[in-house]
């Protein structure tokens, strides 16, 4: 709690240009790990804008996620918890995934030993590989969560994590796109589609963590997707 206040005080000083280069480096590293700090920074800027500008019609517009996606060269689609919970939205999400899968399949020829088979094999190998677990572990880096257990199968890789201090747990899963049905209803609290050299995957985060932390995990999974070799 005290550390949190100290860090926010430093973020406040950063907004005023009153931090040394050395401190800036440390503060940025903390902001990267904690979405609440990023929000605090954003609120400082919004307050400043309200105080110094009499017109702020675009105050609520946030394009930072889009910029991040374009710069990292990877598309990030996030389905929010509330959306996936309603039955009709689940149906739409499933239809979308099905439609997406159809597109993926339809662009490849169908004969045996065709490119589809080879691609599927590669995806299976990738998802079973230690690289998949590495993606998951990297996606939770900075959260100070401890890996509890994991499962590596051809259908998908699942890992359970725990926060040592609070005891709260959460799960991160990585599935090939065609295995979307493997994501349980309760489990699918926040998902993202990621594309790597080996194919298209779904990352799912569920459990006792904030929505911002889930988003952060999905973003990082996206960044590390190319570890799937």
């Amino acid at each position, binding site marked *: 709690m005290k550390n949190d*206040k100290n860090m*926010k*005080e430093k973020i*406040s*000083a*950063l*907004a*005023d*240009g*009153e*931090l040394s*280069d050395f401190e*800036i*480096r440390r503060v*940025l*590293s903390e*902001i*990267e790990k904690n979405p609440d700090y*990023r*929000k*605090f*920074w*954003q*609120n*400082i*800027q*919004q*307050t*400043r*804008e*309200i*105080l*110094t*500008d*009499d*017109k*702020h*019609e*675009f*105050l*609520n*517009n*946030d*394009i*930072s996620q*889009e*910029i*991040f996606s*374009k*710069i990292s060269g990877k598309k990030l689609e996030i389905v929010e918890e*509330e959306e996936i919970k309603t039955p009709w939205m689940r149906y739409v999400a499933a239809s979308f995934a099905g439609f997406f899968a159809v597109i993926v399949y339809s662009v490849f020829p169908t004969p045996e030993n065709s490119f589809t088979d080879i691609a599927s094999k590669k995806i299976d190998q990738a998802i079973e590989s230690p690289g998949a677990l590495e993606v998951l572990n990297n996606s939770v880096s900075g959260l100070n969560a401890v890996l509890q257990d994991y499962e590596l199968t051809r259908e998908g890789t699942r890992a359970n994590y725990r926060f040592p201090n609070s005891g709260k747990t959460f799960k991160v899963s990585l599935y090939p796109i065609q295995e979307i049905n493997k994501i349980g209803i309760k489990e699918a609290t926040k998902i993202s589609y990621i594309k790597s050299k080996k194919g298209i995957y779904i990352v799912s985060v569920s459990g006792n963590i904030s929505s911002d932390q889930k988003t952060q995990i999905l973003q990082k999974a996206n960044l590390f997707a190319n570890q799937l070799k």
Partner: protein
Amino acid sequence: MKLSSKDVDIGLVKRAKAGDYTAFDLLVLKYQSRLISTAYKFVKDKQIAEDMVQESFIKSLKSLDSFREDSSFYTWIYRITVNTSKNFLISKKRKEELLHVDLTEANADRIESIESDSPESILTAKQLEEIILKNIENLGEETKVAFTLRELEGLSYEQIAEIVRCPVGTVRSRIFRARELIDGAVKDFKNSSRYSSKEVKSEKR
């Protein structure tokens, strides 16, 4: 002497140049709404304005090495946004619109506010403004003075410390305290407005 935007951003720009994306992200969060407003004055479309600003930030990141640290990042990204928006209009053969928009950095602020957002988001922005102003009003006297001197007068911590005759560290704490209280109020508001909008939606169903 006031702290310029140049002084405030320089640390973040340096870190962004060294490849720290979080530093760049903070600059995006800081300037995005102002720049969308600028781009909107050219392109007259909210979505296109957002695209222009996205493109401008991406261009700026790619050419960050060419940015001279003795100039202001905001002025630089502002120019990129204006040029990107102008080029968009030219490429769309809408040069005639440019004739009506003689926007330069100097007179940008004289352009009247444009009601470009939905009534809901205008209302939200208005409510947010009221909450922030009310919370500033309710700050303790010393905290309010430090915060106002910083945000409205743009004074450095050292200058504020001289004026109010207290250590620089105390000024820093007071300004933080003000921001912490405002942050809490804004968070409460955002949570409650999200809750009420959900309620309205479920009632409609």
